[in-house]
């Protein structure tokens, strides 16, 4: 008997270990059948849909730093005060941690009810595995309160599987003082101007461009943007839809990139530089006045702040401009590479989970979020005006003018394909692959 109990305890321990901190049920309440290995029909985290009894909702996100972390807790407290029968537990994790733990948790008997999602191929993988709730019917009555373009990124085969709250574009964050010092009065609008400005900045003794290629997704932005400018929205859209990057414009993108790399415009040792960790990361170098610009997403000001001694980043010296157009390319300046953050709901979550998200993306809550100016660019219609930071306002204006937004390719595809694309571009930055080889590697990855 003792042994059987020991074995059962071990089994429970293993299960709980696998569920990690997301498990809301304590080991003692784990159903006996779980120990035997059969799927648990129910658990504390996902009771049968009923609004009368007590409901506990687990919410996994990657907002583990302020102001987002405190903001989320405030919204949760407000919701719980209005709905006394609902308890919402937040697990805020570091981004990479989150990405490691989520697949395990989704496979366990106690998946998080609400979890961060970036749409695209990652969401598709989870949907195809049957882990995500189809929200199409349940939110039909209020779907029109959200930016329709943003909603599209969280759809799989025309069905809504997630709700966005922020969406932005990748663009150049730059140090206005350094540009002025180099005699660059207006940010370059064409790739040729850009290539001409780089040596001018370099001549002032400052590295023109921050790049944190230890994290390969940062370099991939360059290739993706050049591809979008060379190929234009139609070919880019078709390439992603049909998994085919055969068009010669994708080779041209690599050749354009080669021209830039040959100018040696990056911080020393950029191949080993991390994207965002520490003052010597790519974002840290820009924030501390060691480099002049970085191609990065809307979160950049929020990342740069904490990396400077005064916590303010570059302050007023920081500017933003969109990726320049390439002469002869089919792409327009109104087309962008971008993406955002949103939340998905796991398949057995109680209805209160969606009800809470509805509250979270309401105009009132999102206006308060936008007013934090932390890089959140609200996707709730009517909440955009709350953003007051000049750069972020500029970015929002560009977003509303955008004729096409391609989700970052590493999100648009499954992790396997997405990382292979990042890796191929990393090969070019390290001098190991030529433009045609990058295109071939991307093509091979999407055909897997």
């Amino acid at each position, binding site marked *: 008997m003792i042994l059987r109990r020991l*074995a059962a305890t071990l089994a429970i321990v293993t299960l709980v270990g696998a569920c990690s901190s997301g498990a809301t049920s304590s080991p003692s309440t784990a159903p006996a059948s779980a120990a035997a290995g059969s799927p648990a029909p129910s658990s504390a985290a996902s009771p049968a849909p009923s609004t009368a009894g007590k409901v506990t909702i687990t919410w996994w996100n990657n907002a583990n730093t302020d102001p987002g972390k405190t903001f989320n807790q405030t919204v949760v407290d407000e919701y719980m005060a209005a709905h006394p029968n609902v308890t919402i537990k937040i697990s805020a994790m570091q981004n990479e941690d989150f990405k490691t733990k989520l*697949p395990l948790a989704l496979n366990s008997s106690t998946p998080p009810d609400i979890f961060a999602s970036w749409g695209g191929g990652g969401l598709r993988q989870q949907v195809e595995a049957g882990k995500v709730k189809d929200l199409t019917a349940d939110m039909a009555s209020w779907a029109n309160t959200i930016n329709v373009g943003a909603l599209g990124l969280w759809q799989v085969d025309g069905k809504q599987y997630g709700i966005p709250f922020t969406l932005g574009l990748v663009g150049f964050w730059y140090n206005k003082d350094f540009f002025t010092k180099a005699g660059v009065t207006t940010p370059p609008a064409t790739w040729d101007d850009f290539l001409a400005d780089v040596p001018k900045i370099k001549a002032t003794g400052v590295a023109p461009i921050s790049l944190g*290629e230890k994290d390969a997704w940062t370099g991939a932005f360059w290739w993706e943007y050049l591809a979008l400018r060379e190929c234009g929205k139609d070919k880019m859209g078709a390439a992603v839809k049909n998994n085919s990057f055969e068009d010669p414009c994708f080779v041209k993108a690599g050749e354009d990139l080669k021209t830039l790399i040959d100018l040696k415009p990056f911080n020393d*040792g950029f191949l*080993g530089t991390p994207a965002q960790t520490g003052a*010597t990361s790519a974002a840290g170098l820009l924030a501390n006045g060691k480099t002049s610009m970085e191609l990065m997403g809307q979160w950049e000001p929020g990342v740069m702040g904490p990396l400077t001694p005064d916590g303010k980043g570059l302050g007023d010296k920081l500017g933003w401009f969109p990726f320049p157009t390439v002469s002869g390319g089919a792409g327009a300046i109104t087309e962008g590479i971008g993406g955002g953050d949103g939340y998905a709901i796991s398949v057995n979550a109680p209805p209160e989970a969606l009800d809470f998200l509805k509250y979270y993306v309401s105009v009132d809550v999102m206006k308060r979020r936008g007013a934090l100016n932390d890089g959140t660019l609200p996707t709730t219609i009517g909440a955009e005006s709350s953003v007051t930071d000049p750069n972020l306002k500029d970015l929002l204006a560009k977003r509303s003018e955008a004729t096409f937004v391609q989700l970052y390719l590493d999100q648009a595809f499954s992790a396997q394909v997405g990382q292979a694309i990042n890796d191929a571009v990393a090969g070019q930055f*390290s001098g190991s692959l030529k433009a045609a080889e990058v295109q071939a590697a991307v093509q091979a990855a999407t055909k897997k």
Partner: protein
Amino acid sequence: MSSTSDVTVGAAGARRQYAQRRHLRKWLEIGLFVLPAIVLFVVFVLSPVVRAVYYSGFRWDGLGPLTDWVGIGNYQQALGDPFFTGAVVHTLVILVLSLTVQQPVALALALALARNFRGRTFLRLVFFAPYVISEATIGVIWLLILQPHGPLDQTLQAIGLGFLVQLWLADRGLVLLTLFVVISWQYFGFSMILYLAGLTQIPLELTEAAAIDGARTRQMLRYITLPLLGPTIRIAFFLSAIGSLQVFGLIFIMTGGGPYHASDSMVTYMVEEGWTRTSLGYGAAMAVILGVIGLVFSLFYQRLVLRRDVAGAVTSFAG
């Protein structure tokens, strides 16, 4: 007559019964004591190994059901994957360097610190300290030291060795060596302590006798110290080799296997492919290959090198 024989039979039966009971009891006791260990071993070691082998036969992203059986496809993919074979080579390079550079240095230091002089305890502590600190901490510390224009570069410039400055972690040709130095910096102290412990086991009489016979220091080292230190050396080499095969933490933190796969080890590449790219089947196949390499190495090392050390130490059940 019959009654006595009955008694004899009865006594013999009772004795046999008693013997049987004792036999049963002995096995029950053994079973009871061993069972927890067996349960733990099966649950936490054997079952994951078996599962890894099972998963390695599928193309699987870790989310859906296991449906896409590819047989040995993942293994074929691994052997044809230049980054995986590269990772195997990098791992072997670190293994060989550990045995040929790190271990001799550790041994030399142990020999130096075995002598009696002021401050030797302090020095032992200093050399052993890195081993106690977690890999994550050491990785971050060295990451900062090795930054371009970082403390190491500044120090080199300050003492007039500026021409030695390199992109320590960003140069594809240099990064593996840099990592080896950091790995050694953390782990040589452990081998050194093993050697020091081994040295204290060598009876002083032998060296004294040799000294009286007129042996020089080098001769004593060659004919007394090293032979008697043999078992320790063999074990230290074994642990160092196994550690090299599993090298992960420092590389993962400092370079993530980059730039562009120049510093992948078997384990970092397995994690990169298996987890980050959610190809769990492929990752499992690499884990199995890594396990087989480790197992084969261990078995051969045990058979060929360690056998003489354990030959007299195994308790036989027959007696």
